[in-house]
Protein backbone atom coordinates (compact mmCIF):
# COMPACT_ATOMS: atom_id res chain seq x y z
CA UNK A 1 0.00 0.00 0.00
CA UNK A 2 2.82 2.37 0.88
CA UNK A 3 4.96 1.53 -2.13
CA UNK A 4 3.10 3.98 -4.33
CA UNK A 5 3.83 7.01 -2.19
CA UNK A 6 6.68 9.08 -3.56
CA UNK A 7 9.33 10.17 -1.11
CA UNK A 8 9.26 13.86 -0.34
CA UNK A 9 12.54 15.67 -0.92
CA UNK A 10 12.78 17.09 2.61
CA UNK A 11 14.39 14.49 4.91
CA UNK A 12 12.99 11.74 2.73
CA UNK A 13 15.79 9.29 3.31
CA UNK A 14 15.42 9.23 7.07
CA UNK A 15 11.69 8.91 6.96
CA UNK A 16 11.81 6.09 4.43
CA UNK A 17 14.33 4.34 6.62
CA UNK A 18 11.95 4.48 9.53
CA UNK A 19 9.11 3.30 7.41
CA UNK A 20 11.14 0.38 6.14
CA UNK A 21 12.09 -0.60 9.65
CA UNK A 22 8.52 -0.35 10.85
CA UNK A 23 7.39 -2.44 7.92
CA UNK A 24 9.99 -5.02 8.70
CA UNK A 25 9.09 -5.21 12.38
CA UNK A 26 5.45 -5.41 11.45
CA UNK A 27 6.21 -8.29 9.08
CA UNK A 28 8.13 -10.04 11.84
CA UNK A 29 5.22 -9.43 14.17
CA UNK A 30 2.81 -10.89 11.65
CA UNK A 31 4.93 -13.98 11.22
CA UNK A 32 5.12 -14.41 14.97
CA UNK A 33 1.36 -13.96 15.33
CA UNK A 34 0.78 -16.44 12.51
CA UNK A 35 3.07 -18.86 14.28
CA UNK A 36 1.19 -18.48 17.55
CA UNK A 37 -2.19 -18.87 15.87
CA UNK A 38 -1.18 -21.86 13.78
CA UNK A 39 0.83 -23.78 16.33
CA UNK A 40 -2.10 -25.47 18.13
CA UNK A 41 -3.43 -26.85 14.84
CA UNK A 42 0.00 -27.97 13.70
CA UNK A 43 0.67 -29.49 17.10
CA UNK A 44 -2.53 -31.53 17.05
CA UNK A 45 -1.99 -32.66 13.47
CA UNK A 46 1.64 -33.45 14.19
CA UNK A 47 0.68 -35.52 17.20
CA UNK A 48 -2.18 -37.46 15.64
CA UNK A 49 -1.18 -37.58 11.99
CA UNK A 50 2.54 -37.19 11.38
CA UNK A 51 3.80 -38.93 14.48
CA UNK A 52 1.59 -42.00 13.87
CA UNK A 53 2.66 -42.16 10.24
CA UNK A 54 6.33 -42.22 11.15
CA UNK A 55 5.64 -44.56 14.02
CA UNK A 56 3.73 -46.93 11.72
CA UNK A 57 6.63 -46.92 9.31
CA UNK A 58 9.03 -47.84 12.12
CA UNK A 59 6.65 -50.41 13.55
CA UNK A 60 6.28 -52.11 10.19
CA UNK A 61 9.95 -53.11 10.30
CA UNK A 62 9.61 -54.82 13.65
CA UNK A 63 7.84 -57.89 14.84
CA UNK A 64 6.40 -58.62 18.28
CA UNK A 65 8.38 -61.14 20.17
CA UNK A 66 6.48 -64.16 21.29
CA UNK A 67 9.42 -66.52 21.57
CA UNK A 68 10.71 -68.11 24.73
CA UNK A 69 14.31 -67.65 25.73
CA UNK A 70 16.66 -70.35 26.93
CA UNK A 71 15.20 -70.31 30.45
CA UNK A 72 11.66 -70.55 29.20
CA UNK A 73 10.65 -66.93 29.80
CA UNK A 74 8.74 -64.94 27.23
CA UNK A 75 11.07 -62.45 25.61
CA UNK A 76 9.56 -59.00 25.91
CA UNK A 77 9.83 -56.32 23.26
CA UNK A 78 10.25 -56.27 19.54
CA UNK A 79 12.63 -57.77 17.06
CA UNK A 80 13.85 -56.10 13.91
CA UNK A 81 12.32 -57.78 10.91
CA UNK A 82 13.43 -55.53 8.07
CA UNK A 83 11.08 -55.69 5.15
CA UNK A 84 9.80 -59.07 6.32
CA UNK A 85 6.20 -57.95 6.83
CA UNK A 86 6.11 -56.38 3.39
CA UNK A 87 7.43 -59.54 1.75
CA UNK A 88 4.92 -61.61 3.70
CA UNK A 89 2.13 -59.38 2.46
CA UNK A 90 3.13 -59.26 -1.17
CA UNK A 91 4.53 -62.73 -1.75
CA UNK A 92 4.52 -64.68 1.50
CA UNK A 93 1.88 -66.33 3.68
CA UNK A 94 -0.43 -63.36 3.67
CA UNK A 95 -0.23 -62.77 -0.07
CA UNK A 96 -3.55 -64.32 -1.08
CA UNK A 97 -5.46 -62.40 1.56
CA UNK A 98 -3.56 -59.20 0.89
CA UNK A 99 -4.09 -59.18 -2.87
CA UNK A 100 -7.72 -60.08 -2.35
CA UNK A 101 -8.08 -57.03 -0.09
CA UNK A 102 -6.28 -54.84 -2.62
CA UNK A 103 -8.60 -56.10 -5.33
CA UNK A 104 -11.71 -55.55 -3.22
CA UNK A 105 -10.63 -52.04 -2.24
CA UNK A 106 -9.88 -51.10 -5.84
CA UNK A 107 -13.04 -52.71 -7.17
CA UNK A 108 -15.25 -50.99 -4.58
CA UNK A 109 -13.60 -47.65 -5.23
CA UNK A 110 -13.96 -47.76 -9.01
CA UNK A 111 -17.50 -49.12 -9.15
CA UNK A 112 -18.91 -46.89 -6.45
CA UNK A 113 -17.25 -43.70 -7.69
CA UNK A 114 -18.35 -44.30 -11.30
CA UNK A 115 -21.92 -44.99 -10.18
CA UNK A 116 -21.89 -42.02 -7.81
CA UNK A 117 -20.71 -39.65 -10.50
CA UNK A 118 -23.34 -40.80 -13.00
CA UNK A 119 -26.16 -40.73 -10.43
CA UNK A 120 -24.92 -37.55 -8.76
CA UNK A 121 -24.65 -35.77 -12.09
CA UNK A 122 -28.21 -36.79 -12.98
CA UNK A 123 -29.44 -35.60 -9.58
CA UNK A 124 -27.63 -32.28 -9.94
CA UNK A 125 -29.14 -31.70 -13.39
CA UNK A 126 -32.63 -32.41 -12.08
CA UNK A 127 -32.15 -30.15 -9.07
CA UNK A 128 -30.74 -27.42 -11.26
CA UNK A 129 -33.83 -27.48 -13.47
CA UNK A 130 -36.37 -27.70 -10.70
CA UNK A 131 -37.82 -24.52 -9.28
CA UNK A 132 -40.23 -26.04 -6.84
CA UNK A 133 -39.25 -28.41 -4.07
CA UNK A 134 -35.62 -27.35 -3.98
CA UNK A 135 -35.53 -26.99 -0.20
CA UNK A 136 -37.18 -30.38 0.13
CA UNK A 137 -34.56 -32.04 -2.05
CA UNK A 138 -31.72 -30.28 -0.35
CA UNK A 139 -32.95 -31.54 2.99
CA UNK A 140 -33.69 -35.03 1.67
CA UNK A 141 -30.34 -35.35 -0.03
CA UNK A 142 -28.53 -34.71 3.24
CA UNK A 143 -30.28 -37.50 5.11
CA UNK A 144 -28.20 -40.40 3.70
CA UNK A 145 -25.07 -38.35 4.30
CA UNK A 146 -26.01 -37.60 7.91
CA UNK A 147 -26.79 -41.20 8.88
CA UNK A 148 -23.70 -42.71 10.48
CA UNK A 149 -22.14 -45.29 8.17
CA UNK A 150 -22.32 -47.90 10.90
CA UNK A 151 -26.06 -47.31 11.19
CA UNK A 152 -26.57 -47.38 7.43
CA UNK A 153 -24.65 -50.66 7.39
CA UNK A 154 -27.17 -52.01 9.86
CA UNK A 155 -30.05 -50.53 7.89
CA UNK A 156 -28.95 -52.21 4.67
CA UNK A 157 -28.31 -55.48 6.48
CA UNK A 158 -31.97 -55.36 7.45
CA UNK A 159 -33.05 -54.52 3.90
CA UNK A 160 -30.88 -57.33 2.54
CA UNK A 161 -31.97 -59.85 5.19
CA UNK A 162 -33.14 -63.18 3.78
CA UNK A 163 -36.78 -62.24 4.52
CA UNK A 164 -36.05 -58.58 3.99
CA UNK A 165 -37.68 -56.07 1.74
CA UNK A 166 -35.04 -56.31 -1.02
CA UNK A 167 -35.90 -59.93 -1.73
CA UNK A 168 -39.63 -59.20 -1.51
CA UNK A 169 -39.38 -56.34 -4.01
CA UNK A 170 -37.16 -58.35 -6.34
CA UNK A 171 -39.22 -61.50 -5.90
CA UNK A 172 -35.98 -63.40 -5.43
CA UNK A 173 -34.42 -65.43 -2.69
CA UNK A 174 -30.92 -64.00 -2.71
CA UNK A 175 -28.84 -64.69 0.39
CA UNK A 176 -27.17 -61.29 0.42
CA UNK A 177 -25.36 -61.79 3.69
CA UNK A 178 -23.50 -64.84 2.42
CA UNK A 179 -19.93 -64.39 1.28
CA UNK A 180 -19.85 -63.79 -2.45
CA UNK A 181 -20.64 -61.43 -5.31
CA UNK A 182 -24.09 -60.65 -3.89
CA UNK A 183 -22.44 -59.34 -0.69
CA UNK A 184 -20.21 -57.12 -2.80
CA UNK A 185 -23.26 -55.86 -4.66
CA UNK A 186 -24.97 -55.10 -1.35
CA UNK A 187 -21.98 -53.06 -0.19
CA UNK A 188 -21.87 -51.16 -3.49
CA UNK A 189 -25.60 -50.37 -3.38
CA UNK A 190 -25.40 -49.15 0.22
CA UNK A 191 -22.29 -47.04 -0.43
CA UNK A 192 -23.73 -45.46 -3.57
CA UNK A 193 -26.98 -44.69 -1.74
CA UNK A 194 -25.06 -42.86 0.96
CA UNK A 195 -22.71 -40.84 -1.21
CA UNK A 196 -24.29 -40.24 -4.64
CA UNK A 197 -26.45 -37.41 -3.22
CA UNK A 198 -23.30 -35.82 -1.84
CA UNK A 199 -21.66 -35.86 -5.26
CA UNK A 200 -24.90 -34.42 -6.61
CA UNK A 201 -24.70 -31.59 -4.11
CA UNK A 202 -21.14 -30.64 -5.04
CA UNK A 203 -21.96 -30.89 -8.74
CA UNK A 204 -25.01 -28.70 -8.27
CA UNK A 205 -22.77 -26.06 -6.69
CA UNK A 206 -20.64 -26.20 -9.82
CA UNK A 207 -23.66 -26.02 -12.13
CA UNK A 208 -24.96 -22.91 -10.43
CA UNK A 209 -21.82 -20.98 -11.26
CA UNK A 210 -22.36 -21.45 -15.03
CA UNK A 211 -23.88 -18.24 -16.38
CA UNK A 212 -27.18 -18.61 -18.19
CA UNK A 213 -25.99 -16.51 -21.15
CA UNK A 214 -23.77 -19.35 -22.34
CA UNK A 215 -26.81 -21.60 -22.75
CA UNK A 216 -28.85 -18.89 -24.37
CA UNK A 217 -26.10 -18.35 -26.92
CA UNK A 218 -25.97 -22.08 -27.60
CA UNK A 219 -29.73 -22.22 -28.10
CA UNK A 220 -29.48 -19.35 -30.57
CA UNK A 221 -26.79 -21.30 -32.40
CA UNK A 222 -29.20 -24.23 -32.56
CA UNK A 223 -27.51 -26.66 -30.21
CA UNK A 224 -29.79 -29.42 -28.92
CA UNK A 225 -30.09 -30.52 -25.30
CA UNK A 226 -27.61 -33.33 -25.57
CA UNK A 227 -25.00 -31.21 -27.33
CA UNK A 228 -25.46 -28.41 -24.81
CA UNK A 229 -24.83 -30.94 -22.05
CA UNK A 230 -21.78 -32.40 -23.79
CA UNK A 231 -20.17 -29.17 -24.92
CA UNK A 232 -21.18 -26.66 -22.24
CA UNK A 233 -22.37 -28.27 -19.05
CA UNK A 234 -19.81 -31.04 -18.85
CA UNK A 235 -16.67 -28.96 -19.51
CA UNK A 236 -17.79 -26.12 -17.27
CA UNK A 237 -18.85 -28.32 -14.38
CA UNK A 238 -15.75 -30.48 -14.72
CA UNK A 239 -13.63 -28.71 -12.08
CA UNK A 240 -16.31 -29.07 -9.42
CA UNK A 241 -16.96 -32.65 -10.45
CA UNK A 242 -13.26 -33.52 -10.32
CA UNK A 243 -12.91 -32.19 -6.79
CA UNK A 244 -15.87 -34.35 -5.80
CA UNK A 245 -14.30 -37.36 -7.53
CA UNK A 246 -10.95 -36.78 -5.82
CA UNK A 247 -12.48 -36.68 -2.36
CA UNK A 248 -14.80 -39.60 -3.06
CA UNK A 249 -11.96 -41.77 -4.37
CA UNK A 250 -9.82 -41.06 -1.33
CA UNK A 251 -12.77 -41.76 0.91
CA UNK A 252 -13.76 -44.98 -0.84
CA UNK A 253 -10.20 -46.31 -0.67
CA UNK A 254 -10.37 -46.34 3.12
CA UNK A 255 -13.78 -48.02 3.25
CA UNK A 256 -14.23 -49.81 6.54
CA UNK A 257 -17.47 -49.26 8.47
CA UNK A 258 -19.89 -50.32 5.78
CA UNK A 259 -18.59 -53.80 4.89
CA UNK A 260 -17.66 -54.32 8.55
CA UNK A 261 -21.23 -53.82 9.74
CA UNK A 262 -23.19 -54.85 6.65
CA UNK A 263 -21.45 -58.15 5.90
CA UNK A 264 -19.03 -58.75 8.73
CA UNK A 265 -15.39 -59.39 9.50
CA UNK A 266 -13.19 -61.86 7.70
CA UNK A 267 -15.51 -62.22 4.75
CA UNK A 268 -13.29 -62.75 1.75
CA UNK A 269 -15.56 -61.08 -0.77
CA UNK A 270 -15.76 -57.74 1.03
CA UNK A 271 -12.55 -57.51 3.05
CA UNK A 272 -10.87 -54.20 2.27
CA UNK A 273 -7.30 -53.17 3.05
CA UNK A 274 -8.49 -51.15 6.05
CA UNK A 275 -10.34 -54.17 7.42
CA UNK A 276 -7.33 -56.40 6.91
CA UNK A 277 -5.03 -53.99 8.74
CA UNK A 278 -7.58 -53.56 11.52
CA UNK A 279 -7.88 -57.33 11.91
CA UNK A 280 -4.13 -57.70 12.32
CA UNK A 281 -3.94 -54.81 14.79
CA UNK A 282 -6.66 -56.20 17.02
CA UNK A 283 -4.83 -59.50 17.02
CA UNK A 284 -1.84 -57.60 18.42
CA UNK A 285 0.23 -58.27 15.32
CA UNK A 286 1.15 -54.60 15.20
CA UNK A 287 4.12 -55.08 12.89
CA UNK A 288 2.08 -56.75 10.17
CA UNK A 289 -0.79 -54.34 10.72
CA UNK A 290 1.56 -51.38 10.43
CA UNK A 291 2.96 -52.78 7.19
CA UNK A 292 -0.56 -53.07 5.75
CA UNK A 293 -1.40 -49.58 7.00
CA UNK A 294 1.76 -48.19 5.41
CA UNK A 295 1.01 -49.89 2.09
CA UNK A 296 -2.52 -48.53 2.35
CA UNK A 297 -1.17 -45.05 2.98
CA UNK A 298 1.20 -45.27 0.02
CA UNK A 299 -1.63 -46.51 -2.17
CA UNK A 300 -3.87 -43.59 -1.18
CA UNK A 301 -1.03 -41.10 -1.61
CA UNK A 302 -0.19 -42.55 -5.03
CA UNK A 303 -3.81 -42.40 -6.19
CA UNK A 304 -4.16 -38.84 -4.88
CA UNK A 305 -0.98 -37.81 -6.63
CA UNK A 306 -1.97 -39.53 -9.87
CA UNK A 307 -5.44 -37.97 -9.80
CA UNK A 308 -4.12 -34.48 -9.21
CA UNK A 309 -1.47 -34.96 -11.91
CA UNK A 310 -3.90 -36.52 -14.36
CA UNK A 311 -6.72 -34.13 -13.82
CA UNK A 312 -4.04 -31.51 -13.52
CA UNK A 313 -4.61 -27.84 -13.36
CA UNK A 314 -8.35 -28.17 -13.09
CA UNK A 315 -8.29 -29.63 -9.60
CA UNK A 316 -5.52 -27.36 -8.43
CA UNK A 317 -7.30 -24.41 -10.00
CA UNK A 318 -10.56 -25.32 -8.33
CA UNK A 319 -8.83 -25.74 -4.98
CA UNK A 320 -7.33 -22.31 -5.49
CA UNK A 321 -10.64 -20.70 -6.40
CA UNK A 322 -12.15 -22.23 -3.31
CA UNK A 323 -9.53 -20.41 -1.31
CA UNK A 324 -10.42 -17.12 -2.87
CA UNK A 325 -13.29 -15.02 -1.75
CA UNK A 326 -16.69 -15.58 -3.22
CA UNK A 327 -16.56 -12.12 -4.72
CA UNK A 328 -13.59 -13.00 -6.88
CA UNK A 329 -15.17 -16.28 -7.85
CA UNK A 330 -18.39 -14.75 -9.07
CA UNK A 331 -16.48 -12.08 -10.98
CA UNK A 332 -14.48 -14.80 -12.71
CA UNK A 333 -17.64 -16.66 -13.59
CA UNK A 334 -19.03 -13.62 -15.27
CA UNK A 335 -15.81 -13.09 -17.20
CA UNK A 336 -15.76 -16.74 -18.26
Amino acid at each position, binding site marked *: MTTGTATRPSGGVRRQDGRERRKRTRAAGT*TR*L*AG*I*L*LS*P*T*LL*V*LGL*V*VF*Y*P*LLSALRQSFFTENDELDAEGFVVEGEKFNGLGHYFDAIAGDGAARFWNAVWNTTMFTTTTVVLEVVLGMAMAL*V*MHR*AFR*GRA*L*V*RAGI*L*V*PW*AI*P*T*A*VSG*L*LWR*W*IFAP*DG*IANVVLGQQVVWSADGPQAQLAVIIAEVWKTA*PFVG*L*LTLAGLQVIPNEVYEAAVVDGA*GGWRRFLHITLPLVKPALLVAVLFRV*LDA*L*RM*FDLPFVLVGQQKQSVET*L*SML*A*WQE*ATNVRYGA*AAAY*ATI*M*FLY*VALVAFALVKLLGTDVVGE*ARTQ*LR*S*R*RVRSREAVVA
Partner: protein
Amino acid sequence: MSTPQSGRGRSRGAAWKRWLPTAGIAAIVLYCLAPFYWMVVTAFRRPSDQFDNFPVPRVWSFESFLAVFEPGTGFGRALLNSLVVAGCTTVLTLVVGVSAAYALARLQFRGKALVLALIIACSMFPGISLVVPLLGLFTELDWINSYQSMIVPSMSFALPLAVWNLTTFFRQMPVELEQAAMIDGCTPAQAFRRVIVPLAAPGVFTTAILTFIMSWNEFIIALSVVNEQDMQTVTVAISKFTGAQGFEQPFGTQMAAGVVVTVPLVVAVLLFQRRIVAGLTAGGVK
Protein backbone atom coordinates in the same frame (compact mmCIF):
# COMPACT_ATOMS: atom_id res chain seq x y z
CA MET B 1 -33.14 -34.74 -30.05
CA SER B 2 -34.52 -32.40 -32.67
CA THR B 3 -36.80 -29.78 -31.24
CA PRO B 4 -40.42 -30.15 -32.40
CA GLN B 5 -41.36 -27.31 -34.71
CA SER B 6 -45.15 -27.59 -34.91
CA GLY B 7 -47.18 -25.67 -32.32
CA ARG B 8 -48.83 -28.78 -30.96
CA GLY B 9 -45.55 -30.58 -30.62
CA ARG B 10 -44.03 -27.71 -28.76
CA SER B 11 -46.83 -27.41 -26.25
CA ARG B 12 -46.70 -31.14 -25.63
CA GLY B 13 -42.96 -30.83 -25.20
CA ALA B 14 -43.46 -27.97 -22.77
CA ALA B 15 -45.88 -29.99 -20.65
CA TRP B 16 -43.46 -32.88 -20.68
CA LYS B 17 -40.66 -30.56 -19.66
CA ARG B 18 -42.74 -29.08 -16.90
CA TRP B 19 -43.49 -32.26 -15.06
CA LEU B 20 -40.18 -33.94 -15.71
CA PRO B 21 -38.20 -31.97 -13.07
CA THR B 22 -40.99 -32.56 -10.56
CA ALA B 23 -40.89 -36.27 -11.26
CA GLY B 24 -37.11 -36.15 -10.99
CA ILE B 25 -37.34 -34.38 -7.64
CA ALA B 26 -39.81 -36.99 -6.41
CA ALA B 27 -37.48 -39.77 -7.56
CA ILE B 28 -34.48 -38.23 -5.78
CA VAL B 29 -36.38 -37.69 -2.54
CA LEU B 30 -37.72 -41.24 -2.72
CA TYR B 31 -34.24 -42.61 -3.39
CA CYS B 32 -32.77 -40.73 -0.43
CA LEU B 33 -35.53 -41.31 2.08
CA ALA B 34 -37.01 -44.75 1.31
CA PRO B 35 -34.34 -46.79 3.13
CA PHE B 36 -34.46 -44.40 6.08
CA TYR B 37 -38.25 -44.63 6.11
CA TRP B 38 -37.96 -48.41 6.20
CA MET B 39 -35.75 -48.18 9.27
CA VAL B 40 -38.23 -45.93 11.07
CA VAL B 41 -41.20 -48.13 10.17
CA THR B 42 -39.44 -51.28 11.32
CA ALA B 43 -38.61 -49.63 14.62
CA PHE B 44 -42.31 -48.99 15.26
CA ARG B 45 -43.46 -52.55 14.52
CA ARG B 46 -44.11 -55.08 17.23
CA PRO B 47 -41.21 -57.53 17.49
CA SER B 48 -43.60 -60.26 16.40
CA ASP B 49 -44.45 -58.31 13.21
CA GLN B 50 -40.80 -57.68 12.45
CA PHE B 51 -40.86 -59.41 9.08
CA ASP B 52 -44.18 -57.96 8.02
CA ASN B 53 -43.60 -56.08 4.76
CA PHE B 54 -46.64 -53.85 4.81
CA PRO B 55 -45.45 -50.25 4.26
CA VAL B 56 -47.04 -49.01 7.49
CA PRO B 57 -46.99 -50.86 10.82
CA ARG B 58 -50.30 -52.64 11.30
CA VAL B 59 -49.98 -52.10 15.03
CA TRP B 60 -47.76 -49.26 16.21
CA SER B 61 -45.60 -50.24 19.12
CA PHE B 62 -42.79 -48.78 21.18
CA GLU B 63 -41.57 -52.17 22.36
CA SER B 64 -38.40 -52.00 20.30
CA PHE B 65 -37.51 -48.59 21.67
CA LEU B 66 -38.06 -49.80 25.23
CA ALA B 67 -35.86 -52.79 24.49
CA VAL B 68 -33.07 -50.49 23.31
CA PHE B 69 -32.95 -48.73 26.65
CA GLU B 70 -33.40 -51.80 28.82
CA PRO B 71 -30.69 -52.06 31.46
CA GLY B 72 -27.91 -54.30 30.28
CA THR B 73 -27.76 -52.98 26.74
CA GLY B 74 -25.62 -50.04 27.87
CA PHE B 75 -27.20 -47.96 25.14
CA GLY B 76 -28.00 -44.93 27.30
CA ARG B 77 -24.41 -44.86 28.45
CA ALA B 78 -23.22 -45.15 24.84
CA LEU B 79 -25.36 -42.15 23.89
CA LEU B 80 -23.80 -40.18 26.71
CA ASN B 81 -20.30 -41.25 25.61
CA SER B 82 -20.96 -40.15 22.05
CA LEU B 83 -22.27 -36.84 23.29
CA VAL B 84 -19.15 -36.28 25.37
CA VAL B 85 -16.76 -37.33 22.60
CA ALA B 86 -18.49 -35.45 19.77
CA GLY B 87 -19.13 -32.41 21.96
CA CYS B 88 -15.54 -32.13 23.18
CA THR B 89 -14.17 -32.76 19.69
CA THR B 90 -16.36 -29.99 18.29
CA VAL B 91 -15.44 -27.44 20.95
CA LEU B 92 -11.71 -28.20 20.85
CA THR B 93 -11.64 -28.29 17.05
CA LEU B 94 -13.33 -24.91 16.84
CA VAL B 95 -11.05 -23.29 19.43
CA VAL B 96 -7.94 -24.58 17.67
CA GLY B 97 -9.31 -24.20 14.16
CA VAL B 98 -10.59 -20.63 14.44
CA SER B 99 -7.19 -19.20 15.27
CA ALA B 100 -5.47 -21.17 12.51
CA ALA B 101 -8.12 -20.16 9.98
CA TYR B 102 -7.79 -16.53 10.94
CA ALA B 103 -4.05 -16.63 10.42
CA LEU B 104 -4.50 -18.30 7.04
CA ALA B 105 -7.21 -15.91 5.89
CA ARG B 106 -5.74 -12.64 7.06
CA LEU B 107 -2.03 -12.69 7.74
CA GLN B 108 0.65 -12.62 5.10
CA PHE B 109 3.58 -14.83 5.99
CA ARG B 110 6.01 -17.13 4.30
CA GLY B 111 5.10 -20.80 3.95
CA LYS B 112 1.34 -20.17 4.00
CA ALA B 113 0.70 -22.32 0.95
CA LEU B 114 2.75 -25.11 2.51
CA VAL B 115 0.77 -24.97 5.76
CA LEU B 116 -2.52 -25.05 3.86
CA ALA B 117 -1.34 -27.98 1.77
CA LEU B 118 -0.23 -29.85 4.90
CA ILE B 119 -3.58 -29.30 6.59
CA ILE B 120 -5.48 -30.47 3.51
CA ALA B 121 -3.20 -33.47 3.13
CA CYS B 122 -4.13 -34.51 6.67
CA SER B 123 -7.73 -35.05 5.63
CA MET B 124 -6.62 -37.55 3.01
CA PHE B 125 -4.90 -40.04 5.29
CA PRO B 126 -6.65 -43.36 5.62
CA GLY B 127 -7.91 -43.75 9.17
CA ILE B 128 -6.33 -47.16 9.53
CA SER B 129 -2.77 -45.92 9.06
CA LEU B 130 -3.33 -43.72 12.09
CA VAL B 131 -5.24 -46.24 14.15
CA VAL B 132 -2.57 -48.93 14.19
CA PRO B 133 0.26 -46.81 15.67
CA LEU B 134 -2.11 -44.83 17.89
CA LEU B 135 -3.38 -48.08 19.35
CA GLY B 136 0.19 -48.94 20.35
CA LEU B 137 0.83 -45.43 21.69
CA PHE B 138 -2.38 -45.29 23.70
CA THR B 139 -1.70 -48.70 25.17
CA GLU B 140 1.60 -47.38 26.50
CA LEU B 141 0.02 -44.15 27.75
CA ASP B 142 -2.73 -46.17 29.40
CA TRP B 143 -5.28 -44.22 27.40
CA ILE B 144 -7.24 -47.25 26.20
CA ASN B 145 -10.89 -46.92 27.28
CA SER B 146 -10.62 -43.19 27.84
CA TYR B 147 -12.44 -40.27 26.28
CA GLN B 148 -9.24 -38.52 25.23
CA SER B 149 -8.18 -41.54 23.17
CA MET B 150 -11.25 -40.93 21.02
CA ILE B 151 -11.33 -37.13 21.12
CA VAL B 152 -7.73 -36.41 20.12
CA PRO B 153 -7.67 -38.63 17.00
CA SER B 154 -11.13 -37.43 15.98
CA MET B 155 -9.73 -33.93 15.94
CA SER B 156 -7.28 -34.95 13.25
CA PHE B 157 -10.19 -35.74 10.94
CA ALA B 158 -12.26 -32.73 11.94
CA LEU B 159 -9.54 -30.07 12.01
CA PRO B 160 -8.69 -29.96 8.29
CA LEU B 161 -12.36 -29.56 7.41
CA ALA B 162 -12.87 -26.90 10.07
CA VAL B 163 -9.77 -24.91 9.13
CA TRP B 164 -10.64 -25.09 5.44
CA ASN B 165 -14.24 -23.99 6.01
CA LEU B 166 -13.46 -21.24 8.49
CA THR B 167 -10.73 -19.83 6.26
CA THR B 168 -13.31 -19.47 3.50
CA PHE B 169 -15.72 -17.74 5.86
CA PHE B 170 -13.13 -15.34 7.23
CA ARG B 171 -12.01 -14.40 3.74
CA GLN B 172 -15.54 -13.41 2.83
CA MET B 173 -15.51 -10.74 5.51
CA PRO B 174 -14.24 -7.32 4.51
CA VAL B 175 -10.79 -6.52 5.89
CA GLU B 176 -11.90 -2.91 6.38
CA LEU B 177 -13.78 -3.93 9.51
CA GLU B 178 -10.65 -4.94 11.34
CA GLN B 179 -8.72 -2.02 9.96
CA ALA B 180 -11.37 0.33 11.31
CA ALA B 181 -11.17 -1.37 14.70
CA MET B 182 -7.40 -1.11 14.68
CA ILE B 183 -7.56 2.57 13.80
CA ASP B 184 -9.82 2.94 16.81
CA GLY B 185 -7.01 1.56 18.89
CA CYS B 186 -7.52 -2.20 18.95
CA THR B 187 -4.57 -4.54 18.64
CA PRO B 188 -4.96 -7.19 15.89
CA ALA B 189 -5.87 -9.72 18.56
CA GLN B 190 -8.54 -7.45 19.99
CA ALA B 191 -9.86 -6.62 16.55
CA PHE B 192 -10.17 -10.33 15.92
CA ARG B 193 -11.90 -11.06 19.21
CA ARG B 194 -14.30 -8.14 19.28
CA VAL B 195 -15.09 -7.67 15.60
CA ILE B 196 -14.39 -10.81 13.64
CA VAL B 197 -15.47 -13.55 16.02
CA PRO B 198 -18.99 -12.14 16.55
CA LEU B 199 -19.40 -11.51 12.83
CA ALA B 200 -18.11 -14.94 11.91
CA ALA B 201 -20.60 -16.62 14.25
CA PRO B 202 -22.75 -18.08 11.43
CA GLY B 203 -19.70 -19.60 9.76
CA VAL B 204 -18.41 -20.94 13.05
CA PHE B 205 -21.84 -22.38 13.78
CA THR B 206 -21.97 -24.13 10.39
CA THR B 207 -18.54 -25.58 10.98
CA ALA B 208 -19.64 -26.70 14.43
CA ILE B 209 -22.59 -28.65 13.00
CA LEU B 210 -20.42 -30.31 10.37
CA THR B 211 -17.75 -31.20 12.92
CA PHE B 212 -20.30 -32.57 15.35
CA ILE B 213 -21.98 -34.76 12.72
CA MET B 214 -18.59 -35.99 11.58
CA SER B 215 -17.37 -36.98 15.02
CA TRP B 216 -20.75 -38.39 16.03
CA ASN B 217 -20.47 -40.71 13.01
CA GLU B 218 -16.86 -41.70 13.69
CA PHE B 219 -16.40 -45.45 13.94
CA ILE B 220 -12.96 -46.92 13.35
CA ILE B 221 -11.12 -45.10 16.16
CA ALA B 222 -13.85 -45.63 18.71
CA LEU B 223 -13.99 -49.31 17.72
CA SER B 224 -10.24 -49.75 18.13
CA VAL B 225 -9.29 -47.84 21.26
CA VAL B 226 -12.16 -49.00 23.45
CA ASN B 227 -12.85 -52.51 24.63
CA GLU B 228 -15.09 -51.84 27.64
CA GLN B 229 -18.81 -51.66 27.03
CA ASP B 230 -19.10 -48.65 29.32
CA MET B 231 -16.89 -46.51 27.11
CA GLN B 232 -18.36 -47.43 23.73
CA THR B 233 -19.81 -44.73 21.55
CA VAL B 234 -23.20 -45.27 19.91
CA THR B 235 -21.86 -46.18 16.47
CA VAL B 236 -19.77 -48.95 18.02
CA ALA B 237 -22.49 -50.03 20.42
CA ILE B 238 -24.99 -50.28 17.59
CA SER B 239 -22.67 -52.42 15.48
CA LYS B 240 -22.38 -54.85 18.38
CA PHE B 241 -26.04 -54.65 19.24
CA THR B 242 -27.65 -57.97 19.85
CA GLY B 243 -30.62 -56.64 21.75
CA ALA B 244 -31.62 -57.31 25.30
CA GLN B 245 -33.93 -60.21 24.58
CA GLY B 246 -31.28 -62.23 22.81
CA PHE B 247 -33.14 -62.92 19.60
CA GLU B 248 -31.33 -64.55 16.76
CA GLN B 249 -31.53 -61.32 14.74
CA PRO B 250 -33.14 -58.51 16.73
CA PHE B 251 -33.67 -56.29 13.70
CA GLY B 252 -36.54 -54.40 15.33
CA THR B 253 -34.36 -53.39 18.27
CA GLN B 254 -31.44 -52.59 15.99
CA MET B 255 -33.59 -50.36 13.80
CA ALA B 256 -35.01 -48.62 16.89
CA ALA B 257 -31.44 -48.02 18.09
CA GLY B 258 -30.58 -46.72 14.63
CA VAL B 259 -33.50 -44.31 14.76
CA VAL B 260 -32.44 -43.05 18.18
CA VAL B 261 -28.89 -42.44 16.91
CA THR B 262 -29.92 -40.87 13.62
CA VAL B 263 -33.00 -38.79 14.32
CA PRO B 264 -31.18 -35.97 16.17
CA LEU B 265 -28.84 -35.65 13.19
CA VAL B 266 -31.68 -35.72 10.68
CA VAL B 267 -33.52 -33.04 12.65
CA ALA B 268 -30.37 -30.90 12.72
CA VAL B 269 -29.94 -31.42 8.97
CA LEU B 270 -33.53 -30.40 8.28
CA LEU B 271 -33.25 -27.30 10.45
CA PHE B 272 -29.90 -26.10 9.17
CA GLN B 273 -29.88 -27.54 5.65
CA ARG B 274 -29.12 -24.22 4.01
CA ARG B 275 -26.07 -23.66 6.16
CA ILE B 276 -24.86 -27.23 5.95
CA VAL B 277 -24.99 -27.14 2.16
CA ALA B 278 -23.10 -23.83 2.18
CA GLY B 279 -20.49 -25.33 4.46
CA LEU B 280 -20.11 -28.52 2.46
CA THR B 281 -19.76 -26.79 -0.87
CA ALA B 282 -17.45 -24.12 0.53
CA GLY B 283 -15.07 -26.68 1.90
CA GLY B 284 -15.56 -29.22 -0.83
CA VAL B 285 -14.27 -31.72 1.72
CA LYS B 286 -16.44 -34.32 3.32
